[in-house]
């Protein structure tokens, strides 16, 4: 057996002693910081709670006044009370609308919160930039649309924040500017971006359809699916809006895109010119169940009797239980009245849907 090399005990002892001392110092520092921060936090919490209880009734009362006289009130407020008011203004500006929101904006101006919204792109911190853009969306601070567009980075959160400023501040052509800005990135949109895209196009998605007509070939599958899904939630655009590219997406290689395209076209399927171009037979034979589910969900309602017949026939070979359940749910009444030739699995789905509806009345 090889001999283990001996290490001088004195050296080891000295090393361990030093390590132990260092650990002891670290423990003392950690303990001191923990206790001190805990005590300080408890005191601050108490002061904030007392200030909030004191301020809230007065705040709501003044918001209801025609002239709330914020300046006089603020002059009497302590620094803690001003901080409490700042967070209350931030919270309430997201909830209030109309005159109440205007009153809060006036209070925000008196609190000089607008300063935080100035020059959002002059700060290096991503969080600070986002904070400034958030205040710009909430307040009535002046904005420079061109500067915001030019300086905005590729960060999807930042682009969503700038587009939101355009929407909230009712910038002329907000729909076109915001849509273009949101979709000029190669990364999928966060929920904030998706919601902003929806809000910008909610009542008239022409800008979104026009942007898609030009750019859809360059988008990633994820973005394309997101845009098509957003179209599904928007009101239908006018008859001259370009839908051709949405039809093209029905034969896209990605099933998520095909399914989303079915959903988007479902919004327009009430139009005879659109309905006549949708090949239901082809869609319910798609190899991916997500596309077939989308077809049953979005097109069953609008199909003519021949389309409905096609769907019921396709259901005989349908391998996906969820797709059948959707079909049973969408065509419940029609299937109940003419149910003699339903497949056993579709019948089972229909029974389930009927039993659920009987329970809920």
């Amino acid at each position: 057996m090889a001999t283990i090399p001996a290490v001088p005990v004195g050296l080891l002892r000295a090393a361990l002693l030093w390590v132990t001392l260092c650990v002891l110092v670290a423990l003392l520092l950690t303990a001191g910081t923990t206790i001190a921060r805990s005590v300080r936090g408890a005191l601050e919490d108490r002061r904030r709670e007392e200030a909030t209880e004191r301020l809230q009734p007065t705040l709501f009362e003044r918001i209801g006044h025609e002239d709330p006289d914020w300046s006089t009130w603020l002059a009497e407020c302590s620094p803690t009370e001003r901080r409490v008011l700042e967070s209350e203004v931030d919270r309430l500006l997201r909830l209030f609308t109309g005159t109440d929101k205007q009153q809060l904006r006036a209070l925000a101006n008196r609190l000089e919160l607008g300063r935080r919204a100035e020059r959002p792109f002059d700060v290096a911190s991503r969080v600070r930039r986002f904070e400034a853009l958030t205040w710009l969306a909430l307040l009535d601070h002046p904005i420079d649309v061109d500067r915001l567009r030019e300086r905005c980075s590729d960060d999807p959160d930042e682009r969503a924040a700038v587009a939101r400023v355009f929407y909230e501040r009712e910038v002329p052509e907000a729909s076109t500017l915001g849509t273009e800005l949101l979709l000029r990135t190669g990364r999928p949109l966060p929920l904030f971006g998706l919601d902003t895209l929806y809000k910008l196009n909610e009542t008239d998605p022409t800008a979104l359809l026009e942007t898609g007509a030009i750019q859809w070939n360059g988008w990633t599958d994820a973005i394309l699916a997101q845009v098509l899904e957003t179209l599904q939630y928007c009101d239908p655009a006018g008859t001259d809006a370009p839908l051709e590219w949405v039809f093209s997406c029905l034969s896209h290689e990605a099933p998520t895109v095909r399914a989303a395209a079915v959903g988007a076209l479902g919004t327009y399927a009430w139009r005879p010119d659109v309905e006549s171009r949708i090949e239901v037979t082809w869609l319910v034979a798609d190899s991916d169940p997500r596309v077939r589910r989308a077809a049953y969900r979005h097109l069953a309602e609008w199909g003519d009797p021949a389309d409905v017949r096609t769907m019921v026939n396709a259901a005989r070979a349908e391998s996906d239980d969820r797709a059948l359940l959707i079909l049973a749910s969408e065509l419940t009444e029609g299937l109940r009245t003419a149910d003699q030739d339903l497949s056993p699995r579709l019948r089972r789905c229909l029974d389930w849907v009927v039993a659920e509806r009987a329970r809920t009345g």
Partner: protein
Amino acid sequence: MIRAVLVEGLTLVGWLILAFYLVVTGVYVLIYASGVVELREHLRESRVSPPFNRFASPSLPTIAVIVPAYNEAPTIVDSIQALTDLNYSRKELLVVNDGSTDATLEELVAAFELREIEAEVPIDIDCAPIEAVYRSETIEELLVIDKENGGKGDALNAGVWFTDATLFCALDADSLIDRDGLLGAVEPFLRRPDEIAATGGSVRVANGCEIEYSQVKAVGTSGSFIAGLQEVEYLRAFYAGRLGYSRLRSLLIVSGAFGLFRTDFVREIGGYDTESVTEDFDLVVRLHRHLVERGEEYRVEFVPEPVVWTQVPANWGALDRQRRRWYRGLLDTLVRERDAIGNPRYGRIGLFVLPAYTLTEGLGPLVEGAGYVLVGLSVALGIVDPTLFVLFLAAANGIGILFSWIGVLSEVLSFRRYDDPADVLVLMGHGVLENLGYRQWKAVIAWRALFEYARGDTSWGEMTRERFTDPEATDTDPEDAD
């Protein structure tokens, strides 16, 4: 001659234990430091909230909250009541009664006016036979699946295949979730919808808390010494450990008590393993492997706040059974996934995370337990200088206490749910005791669990539950017995 061999052998073992300790401590330092950085960034990011109403957004994903329940009669109504108050607009609540032998189903039927859907479930679900499905007359989103007993994983699978929701949240029936719990856990999915595969929420100890209307109203330390030890243990594990792993994109455990997953991914890997006694750990490991093999860019993230509150064992017997089960499950998963450990094909999961877990969580307690015996023997035989041994123990336990206190400090610097400084002092005291006695006890437990694992023991053990809202209630029932 024999003595010479023994001396040589013990000296070698001593050096190996020291080397092992240094490596493990290095891993912990890396993880805890990463945890501190991650917490700081999380706090900075969460300072600003985007100016929009998430709940009004049509793109907000639907979440199915799946609650497996086996003999949970004392707590089930409180838990489900807390879920109905969750601050999330698109949720469905799926309680899966896993063949309870107590009054779990009856309690649910009475409290939420459940009515049976009188039709056969039209979806093929790979789980123990489903007896009936009920929907609540009073809470539209509440659905109860009553099935034969198949274990926790089987009950979760019933929910995973029944739901049509994009995401599902696995939640223990004996836990209470903060009102904003679901919203907090889903936030990473909302920010990066294409990347996030799962998020794990923070779990804290409810034993010392004041509960009102199924919500934690005041957070405090428990009067029970055993629960107190676990309070600081949970703080350290979640606020230092899991945050650190999350920062390193290496989170391997999403607690079974509170985790949010993409439903399609979990279905692709066949759902929960019904044979595993730690189905949560097993699921995440397999999820990692599956997504790496598919070449997906994905993340599994930890969300430090808000939290789920759970009752922890308040007696040594129950704690002993729970910890032995956890350790056996850990060994079982590591053994089954051994081909991925150190395998470059699995990137950071194969080369760092699984080896780190194997060293720290798998071998760590065993080596520690063996170390006390062997080094003690070395001291007795005069091979190791007693002063050295004492100094080593002082340094090692000091580092352990430091890690525990970092968990407490992280809590104080961030969410401050323990807002009374007296409670913080109690936590720090427990942080000391966690390393001077409790940790050594866990090393013994690990050895026992190793022998049980070698014997093929797969039992869950029993644990008693009490109602959250009524401390006077004494009706308890066994839980989780397979």
